[in-house]
């Protein structure tokens, strides 16, 4: 028995000593005391030093977009640091352009706050709030995509532009030992200020999507912050070419709902790309929009449809449908949302038809 007991005790004891040493070092060596953080040369905060700038800002309820949750991989959490950021780290270099380096733009998840620091962040980020929302409804759109409706607290309302996104916090749950934030486009209309709708697809082993698909039920409370994003509706008279695949439908839904509620009289075409008929969803709703909107056409396109399928719509990838159906792009603008490969091929198709590149807005994920 002692053969098992003694090694176990010694091993546990030694690990505990090392852990204790590291904890003491963390409390003493890593303790940078209180430092002053100045934002946009007007707002001053006294914060605890030692953490990353991103988490320090979150502590102060200032939310910077970060799709990867501070791992230095998404490159969204860029902040201009005028003073006190230290040298640029190797982990930031892959996400910083030459302009960023010239303008002292850094990744806030990688820079630590160790001394007084002066930063610049866009004013609209001060509008970003954190909400404790309650899941009011969950609808299965396909086998792997759900539409979730969240109710915000009674006294809270969210102001966003159609096309923007929010971040949802996946808490610690069985099988996941870290909190992460993930970005999801808002599917509901901005006029609905007390509710939010998100379209969330299941990603195998995805921390947040597993949480949403396997653990979240009606009545649960979740933490959401936002809104963020440059992808939004632009008010003009140009014809809109909307393109989405999978959960990329969410911001397009928000745009269409907004146009419907405001009775906006613009010509719009929506190309919805999917693989098979079972990957398409909300078809009835889009058909209904064809009746209610001013001049709207819904064009579903399937890439892996077989002759056995009962399908008389467009076939092939979504860019093929654009190549075939779109005649002249000069008076049009594009709203694209989906994966990188789709966006790249659609941008190519649209520009070849004459849509000005600067009028093609997209949300890549």
């Amino acid at each position, binding site marked *: 028995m002692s053969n098992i007991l003694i090694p176990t005790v010694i091993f546990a004891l030694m690990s505990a000593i*090392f852990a204790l040493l590291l904890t003491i070092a963390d409390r003493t060596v*890593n303790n940078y005391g209180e430092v002053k953080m100045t934002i946009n040369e007007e707002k001053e905060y006294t914060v605890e030093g030692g953490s990353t700038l991103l988490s320090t800002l979150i502590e102060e309820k200032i939310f910077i977009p970060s799709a990867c949750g501070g791992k230095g991989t998404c490159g969204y959490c860029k902040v201009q640091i005028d003073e006190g950021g*230290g040298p640029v780290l190797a*982990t930031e270099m892959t996400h910083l352009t030459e302009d960023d380096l010239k303008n002292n733009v850094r990744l806030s998840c990688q820079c630590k706050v160790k001394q007084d620091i002066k930063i610049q962040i866009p004013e609209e980020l001060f509008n970003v709030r954190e909400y404790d929302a309650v899941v009011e409804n969950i609808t299965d759109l396909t086998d792997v995509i759900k539409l979730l409706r969240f109710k915000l607290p009674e006294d809270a309302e969210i102001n966003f532009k159609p096309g923007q996104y929010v971040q949802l916090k996946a808490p610690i749950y069985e099988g996941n030992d870290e909190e992460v934030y993930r970005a999801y486009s808002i599917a509901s209309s901005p006029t609905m200020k007390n509710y939010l709708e998100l379209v969330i697809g299941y990603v195998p082993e995805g921390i947040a999507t597993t949480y949403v698909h396997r653990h979240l039920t009606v009545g649960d409370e979740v933490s959401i912050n936002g809104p963020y994003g440059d992808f939004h509706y632009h008010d003009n008279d140009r014809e809109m070419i909307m393109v989405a695949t999978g959960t990329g439908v969410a911001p397009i839904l928000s745009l269409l709902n907004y146009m419907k509620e405001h009775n906006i009289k613009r010509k719009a075409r929506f190309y919805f790309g999917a693989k098979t008929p079972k990957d398409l969803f909300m078809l009835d709703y889009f058909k209904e929009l064809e009746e209610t909107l001013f001049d709207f056409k819904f064009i579903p396109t399937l890439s892996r449809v077989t002759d056995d399928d009962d399908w008389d719509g467009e076939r092939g990838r979504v860019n093929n449908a654009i190549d075939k159906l779109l005649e002249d792009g000069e008076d049009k603008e594009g709203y694209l949302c989906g994966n990188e490969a789709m966006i790249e091929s659609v941008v190519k198709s649209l520009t070849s038809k004459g849509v000005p590149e600067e009028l093609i807005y997209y949300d890549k994920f």
Partner: protein
Amino acid sequence: MIELNPMIIFVAAIFTNNMIFSNFLGMCSYIAVSKEITTSLGLGQAVTFVLACTAVINYFIYYYILIPFNLEFLRFIIFIISIAAFVQLLEMILERYLPNLYYALGIFLPLITVNCAILGVSLFMIIRNYTFLQSFAFSVGSGIGWTLAIVALAGIRQRIKIASVPKGLQGPGIALITTGLMALAFIGFSGIVQIQ
């Protein structure tokens, strides 16, 4: 081996039994950080410091804790834990008190944890029954030898940059070939003294 003078072990660890050129240990950071002399010198210093400290820590753990309890078989896991904890500690200390070195090493500092030369030195000192002084001389010598190897390679790579290396061999490929040639050159020292 007991009768060997620590000074001989020290010199041998640098030249005749160089960690890189005779044991090929610690290759990942050796290849990854050997692009510039200044950075590789920084990493070399850090590796030497970690080697010297962890060898001392592991020497005491082995002879004063593991042997009395007949737990020599635990040496692998205990050595790994002590090295990992020490590197974490070092990272915090460097970040606070030597920020220039910390930023120069960047993400490569945590790499020291998985540098097999560090574990290799602790294990060699046990296998070869070194005394405390011999162990210390061996660890410092190994660190200096590792630094010598990486700085020499960085010097060569800085010159290779302007040479016309065939496309398929550029980067780590030519670095490994260079290392092989340097190892051959270091065999020239092997007649001086042998410690194994």
